[in-house]
């Protein structure tokens, strides 16, 4: 089937185009894109009526819950949330509950990827159980479908092991996602070391923990020839370190979680457990610095860091609560908030959600150009809505944006030319 979307505001960060246009799609592939397209042969024409047409988003950091978890987030509920949020490509990243360190179970997981509309990708564990002690079977994980490796929220504390993991994964051309934190400085902390956390009496990590880690990790990447993905940069101190190490000849990339771009530590003002994050929420200065870094092109990818958690885990005081928030469905809404606020241009907000992550992994999607997969979203940039955690696709409800007023919503999501979400339908 051949169809077209016309009369759109076409926003394609890969080609730096933001203007009137449309696309023609055939067999799941973009046939033509731009202001002048030939729609004569199309079976169906969707009139966008001036609304935003962009590449479907690519989210390099999400999680589901372990299989058979009662009321847990499954691949299908995650896919449903992603489709509603305009995310066409979803990476399952390893975390403590689902370490993804066994090639056999990863292979079984990957076999179920095709049934959900969105494109799933998997990152394998860098070390067994994410403990940072023993290298995981990275080569077999690669054979079973992993496209990169990571160590979840745990930094690999032992520099010798990190060196070897970086060197070893380089033979598969894999990125190693490494949480930038000095393991000892950050051990047992739940907040940024700041006036706020000091007054609240929370165990807190200094921002330089991130700087130390980035400098160490980057030095080891330089030594070993490995590819280092700074997994959720969150402080200005860390950003300074990133700028310094980028002067050298290192393969280094950085992601930022949407929470750190749109929230700060005072959002948890009265110690609301919904704002317990890992890395913790930072200061407003840090948040602004990260937004600047997105504008400057220093951030390769913004990730949702979607983390479904049972109420039991969040039903604890802030300092004891399990970190994380649902965010795949609210990712775009939160980013559009920055755009409406005048902090960020739409094309810059979309760049780190589309071609930025696509280029890291050499994915063909994430761009609107002839020959690319027809992974597209149609967005109404103005519709107001209120986030209701219980109305999200996830069976969980731990959403930091719950109750927030968003402006702008995904109307339709296409993956390989197939509509997997229709807001009106």
């Amino acid at each position: 089937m051949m169809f077209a979307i016309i009369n759109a505001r076409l926003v394609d960060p890969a080609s730096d185009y933001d203007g009137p246009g449309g696309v023609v799609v055939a067999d799941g592939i973009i046939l033509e894109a731009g202001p002048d397209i030939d729609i004569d042969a199309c079976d169906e024409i969707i009139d966008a009526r001036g609304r935003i047409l962009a590449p479907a988003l690519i989210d390099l950091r999400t999680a589901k819950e372990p299989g058979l978890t009662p009321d847990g987030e499954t691949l299908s509920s995650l896919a449903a949330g992603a489709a509603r949020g305009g995310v066409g490509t979803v990476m399952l990243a390893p975390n403590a509950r689902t370490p993804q360190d066994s090639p056999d179970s990863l292979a079984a997981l990957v076999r179920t990827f095709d049934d959900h509309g969105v494109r799933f990708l998997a990152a394998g564990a860098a070390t067994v159980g994410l403990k940072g002690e023993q290298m995981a079977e990275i080569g077999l994980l690669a054979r079973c479908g992993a496209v990169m490796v990571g160590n979840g929220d745990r930094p690999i504390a032992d520099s010798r092991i990190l060196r070897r993991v970086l060197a070893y994964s380089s033979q598969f051309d894999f990125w190693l996602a490494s949480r930038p934190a000095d393991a000892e400085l950050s051990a047992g902390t739940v907040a940024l070391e700041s006036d706020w956390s000091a007054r609240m009496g929370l165990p807190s990590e200094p921002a330089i923990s991130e700087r130390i880690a980035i400098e160490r990790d980057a030095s080891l990447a330089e030594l070993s020839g490995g590819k280092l993905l700074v997994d959720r940069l969150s402080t200005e101190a860390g950003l300074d370190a990133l700028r310094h190490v980028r002067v050298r000849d290192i393969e280094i990339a950085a992601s930022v979680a949407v929470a750190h771009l749109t929230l700060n530590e005072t959002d948890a003002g009265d110690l609301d457990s919904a704002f317990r994050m890992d890395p913790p929420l930072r200061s407003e200065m840090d948040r602004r610095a990260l937004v600047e870094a997105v504008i400057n092109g220093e951030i390769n990818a913004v990730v949702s860091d979607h983390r479904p958690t049972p109420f039991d885990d969040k039903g604890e005081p802030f300092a004891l609560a399990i970190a994380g928030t649902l965010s795949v469905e609210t990712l775009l809404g939160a980013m559009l908030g920055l755009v409406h606020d005048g902090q960020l241009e739409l094309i810059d907000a979309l760049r780190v959600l589309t071609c930025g992550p696509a280029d890291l992994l050499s994915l063909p999607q994430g761009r609107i150009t002839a020959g690319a997969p027809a992974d597209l979203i149609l967005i109404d940039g103005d519709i107001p809505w209120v986030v209701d955690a219980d109305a999200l696709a996830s069976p969980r409800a731990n959403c930091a944006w719950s109750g927030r007023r968003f402006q702008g919503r995904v109307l339709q999501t296409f993956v390989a030319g197939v509509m997997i979400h229709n807001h009106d339908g």
Partner: protein
Amino acid sequence: MSRAEFSYDFPHRHLLSVADLNPVDIAIIFERAEVFLKRNRTPDKASDDLRGLTVLNLFFEASTRTQGSFEMAGKRLGADVVNFAVAHSSTSKGESLSDTARTLAAMQPDILVVRHPATGAPKFLAEATGLSVINAGDGMHEHPTQALLDSFTLAQRWGSVGGRRILIVGDILHSRVARSNIGLLNILGAEIRLCAPPTLLPTDVDQWGVEVFHDLDAALVGCDAVMALRQQKERMTGGFVPSEREFFHLFGLTHERLEVASPDVLVLHPGPMNRGVEIHTRLADDPEISLILDQVESGVAVRMAMLELIGTNIRKGYAA
């Protein structure tokens, strides 16, 4: 060209490193080894070429095959061979290597065959004792007789190893066998390829006159011979390599993988083998391809050649 056409005698009194040898030295060693190889297959293996000389096997690391091979080589040449199990004696009582050296030298042996866990120990002993020393493996540095016997084994099949494409696969980082083979094969003009995960390669190894691969299937293309290295079990459990099964999947030699190599490809292994880790058990036992037992046989012959050549020079030294 035979040695008779040169007015050149084997000049060495030690074998510490393959780097001390030139192509003519190596030709002389191989020529003598071939004589011994043939003689060892007859009932008249023994001679009295080294009668009166004492060979001291000084193994600071446990070894059965290398030590046995040297012992047999010495005995077949009529030398008195004494095995000094140092691992269990004076050094465990805290004696320094220079004191051990003085003690041993006082017993007036002629040739020390030394294996030691520390790089440079054989050279140290040669300097400390003034005796002839054959390096039977020092740390991760060199194992010259292994490299000589590997090339000799191949030369028996091919006539010469020059111009042949030879792949060394496995733990190069910790391997003295690999270092000596790289040195020797470069002298002999072979084309050397290495294949290992980045964690098992020495720093800047691409500057050693080799081509480096991480993908075994690419590395094997057109190879005339493959040397599999022995993998230490303790390095296969998450430190350098995640697991033995992953190593076999990525770097293990099998008949199927060898299909891209030369049709007459040969496989060597210094032993002892870990079947199913670095080499498929069926391949290890394939007499068409595997030279593993030929290497063991060549080992005795090459070590006889070394002992004979060095022994001759020791006698010359006395005569002078």
